[in-house]
């Protein structure tokens, strides 16, 4: 119970600086600050050499080039040793013909897993859940996704999330449910009576004053 309480108090929050770390990875010693100026997707998986995780790693490797086009780096994490990570990445390359191009953190002491609330004892006391943290070029935590051990993540949703966040930053808009690049975006709702009156005259495609779309 005490452990649960301690982890809860350390959970990161959206809109705040992502907790800093220095870690050993399959590509050397890396600090969170090394990613500054670009986006980072930090994700955890339960364990190396497990079936769902293997399909996810192939999935992450397959979207790597699309992420690079969007100035996004990827970094994996599990509570496994660096040698396990190396062996697993080599095994994936040998058996699945997919090279893992991103670093994987060996978080044997659970330092980052604890810092980011990746261990959910109700799921597993020894493994990290399938967490995704999107960190922006300023080091701010912008999105979090948690999936259970049994369910592999949707890579297209991760790409869509990045597209949505970057579109929001670039155009100061919001994105509706199921939005995809190229579709109309939402003009942020007015927050005074005066703005509400003006909004409906501004030429947007409005359902009402609080729900207006525009093309970008």
């Amino acid at each position, binding site marked *: 119970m005490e452990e649960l309480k301690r982890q809860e108090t350390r959970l990161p929050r959206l809109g705040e600086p992502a907790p800093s770390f220095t870690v050993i990875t399959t590509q050397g*010693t890396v600090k969170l600050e*090394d990613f500054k100026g670009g986006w980072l997707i930090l994700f955890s998986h339960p364990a190396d050499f497990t079936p769902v995780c293997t399909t996810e790693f192939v999935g992450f490797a397959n979207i790597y080039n699309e992420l690079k086009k969007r100035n996004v780096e990827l970094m994996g994490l599990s509570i496994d040793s660096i040698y396990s990570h190396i062996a697993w990445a080599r095994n994936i390359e040998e058996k699945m013909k997919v090279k893992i191009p991103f670093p994987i953190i060996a978080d044997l002491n659970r330092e980052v897993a604890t810092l980011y609330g990746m261990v959910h004892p109700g799921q597993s006391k020894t493994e990290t859940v399938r967490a995704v943290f999107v960190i922006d070029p300023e080091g701010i935590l912008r999105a979090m996704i948690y999936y259970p051990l049994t369910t592999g993540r949707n890579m297209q949703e991760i790409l869509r999330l990045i597209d949505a966040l970057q579109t929001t930053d670039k155009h100061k808009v919001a994105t509706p449910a199921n939005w995809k690049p190229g579709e109309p975006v939402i003009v942020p709702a007015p927050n005074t009576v005066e703005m509400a009156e003006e909004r409906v005259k501004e030429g947007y495609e409005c359902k009402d004053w609080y729900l207006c779309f525009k093309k970008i």
Partner: protein
Amino acid sequence: MACISPDGNLTTSGKAVLTAAKEGATPEDIAKSSNLPLFRIRSSLRELVSAGLIQEIQGKYKTTAEGLKKLGKE
């Protein structure tokens, strides 16, 4: 480490960074010329500076005489 193997030899990425920094360059320049991600360059520079193979001068990184010697040997 990523640039220097436990046996003391330079790795491929270690050689690429030392070569790219021969004339002095920013981390961004080194990332472009070595075709490695910027985060790896920042990490590599820390390691190579610590090993005395690169030095930082006013935001630019330059391979030291020791770095050039090691590069030439391999």
